[in-house]
């Protein structure tokens, strides 16, 4: 089985976000970058499926060279090889077109992604890629098993869970508890250094959308403290002051 796992290179979940160059660029100073947490679930499940069924796991990142440590980490976790499309990933359509282009050349049985990236939180790249390839996409997937050429999966729907059977190939956006995050071991880290990481240039895609500038939410006002002896007052305040009841 051939599995492609698409990973993002994103600021750590605890990162403080700020901008530079007249609010046109992320201030990367002091920020630690990580594999997107949802992509990490996808990667972990891909490695488990390879252990069960044989085959290969390829990781793909559309991003600049600074993301290579995260790609190496994915190789250390158990991917066999990696592709980096050398481009700044600013627009979902652009990213999806790059992923679809790589996928068209390789006949993957499964393309696993995270349910969403934690920088853009769009949750759209899997649907875009699925449509570009003319195959189904499902998200968020919480359980995935493969039997022959059929995927048995569970996905979250509003207020519940749905179990599906669908023929491969598929594009899936993953989330917990599909697998537990894997931490690379020493042997993995050593072998990752020599695993192939291919850098390819992007295919041309028209700019459909441009991020013009960034901004930050207005700081929260002071928190009004209510003495514990008077908790009942809260109800009145929520009604008359905050007007949310």
């Amino acid at each position, binding site marked *: 089985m051939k599995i492609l796992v698409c990973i993002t290179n994103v600021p750590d979940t605890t990162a403080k976000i700020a901008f530079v160059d007249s609010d046109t660029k992320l201030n990367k100073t002091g920020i630690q970058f990580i594999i997107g947490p949802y992509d990490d679930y996808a990667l972990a499940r891909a490695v488990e499926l390879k252990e069960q069924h044989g085959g290969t796991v390829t990781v793909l990142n559309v991003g600049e060279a600074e993301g290579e440590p995260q790609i190496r980490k994915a190789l250390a976790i158990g991917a066999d090889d990696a592709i980096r499309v050398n481009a700044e990933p600013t627009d979902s359509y652009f990213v999806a077109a790059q992923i679809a282009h790589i996928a068209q050349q390789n006949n993957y049985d499964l393309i696993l992604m995270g349910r969403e990236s934690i920088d853009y939180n769009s949750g759209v790249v899997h649907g875009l890629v699925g449509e570009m390839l003319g195959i189904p996409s499902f998200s968020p997937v919480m359980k995935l098993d493969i039997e022959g050429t059929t995927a048995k999966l569970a996905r979250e729907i509003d207020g519940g869970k749905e179990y599906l059977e*669908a023929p491969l190939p598929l594009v899936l956006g993953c989330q917990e508890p599909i697998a537990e995050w894997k931490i690379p071991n020493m042997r993995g880290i050593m072998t990752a250094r020599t695993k192939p990481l291919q850098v390819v240039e992007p295919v041309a895609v028209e700019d459909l959308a441009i991020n013009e500038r960034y901004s930050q939410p207005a700081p929260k006002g002071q928190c*009004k403290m209510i003495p514990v002896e008077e908790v009942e007052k809260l109800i009145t305040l929520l009604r008359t002051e905050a007007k949310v009841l």
Partner: protein
Amino acid sequence: MSVLVFVEIDNGSIKKLSQEAITYGAEVARMINATATVLALGAADESALAQAGSFGATKVLHASDPKLTHENSMAYADVLVQAAHQEGSKVIIVAKSGLGDAVAARAAAKLKASVISGITSLPEINGNSFKVTRSIYTGKAFATVDIRSEIKILAIRKNAVEATETGNMATVETFSPALNDANFTAKVTDVEKSNAELSLTEADIIVSGGRGMKGPENWQPLLDLAKALGAATGCSKPVSDLDWRPHHEHIGQTGIKVAPNLYIACGISGAIQHLAGVNGSKCIVVINKDPEAPFFKAADYGIVGDIFEVLPRLTKAIEASK
């Protein structure tokens, strides 16, 4: 030409999130001198669909084929594109949700349209320039996006606009799209619906519990408060990891993102990953026994106290004031 709004149906009626999307679509339509048309798929009540008029739509296209009752982003996107062609729509609106994002994405690929998800306010339109503001970095920042594609697909976040209710009715037309078998290859083998009546993404009020609740057996006071408020219930990640509460209640950066009018956090410390899931809330109340808990910095109202004492008193106060 019309602005096309894809709506989600629950129990035959238009979901609340989609009601806001209709109002958003109607506002955009006004800006570009167009009307707003709603697309509703699957089993739905004709009179409930006519309510789309109350939120600003003039017309509803209803494709009632039973095959469309089950959530299917492949088929839905296919039908949405057919409707967009019929209506000559250049702007398509969905409410941001798992389904909305998926339908928007697949339609975007078909139409070579830009799809922007997580929009927090109405667009700025000036001649040919069309700009939107969206939430990024899980609510920690915003981006202003200049959309260049001819067709624009926007996934609107909760609270981007307030759903208007004018009392007008929309005309409901039958829509009979061609359905492609290739979109129906997946087989649904089972569905588990939680017995919660209110879903977190739809709820106006959420009462949420953290590790401070000490164990699943202690949830009753929180459930009582939620019931008194007509609220949905949520939790922090460790709580769902420990199986104290079901996974779909997990709120935060790696869980569900919510934007209710009122979020009441009980025994949750306020880690940045939790805050990322609630920073779209209008009003936040924090109850924690530790005055140094970081959540107070993100709160509008705070109570330093023991949840097991505070919750029953709040419930009582609400019951008494009804």
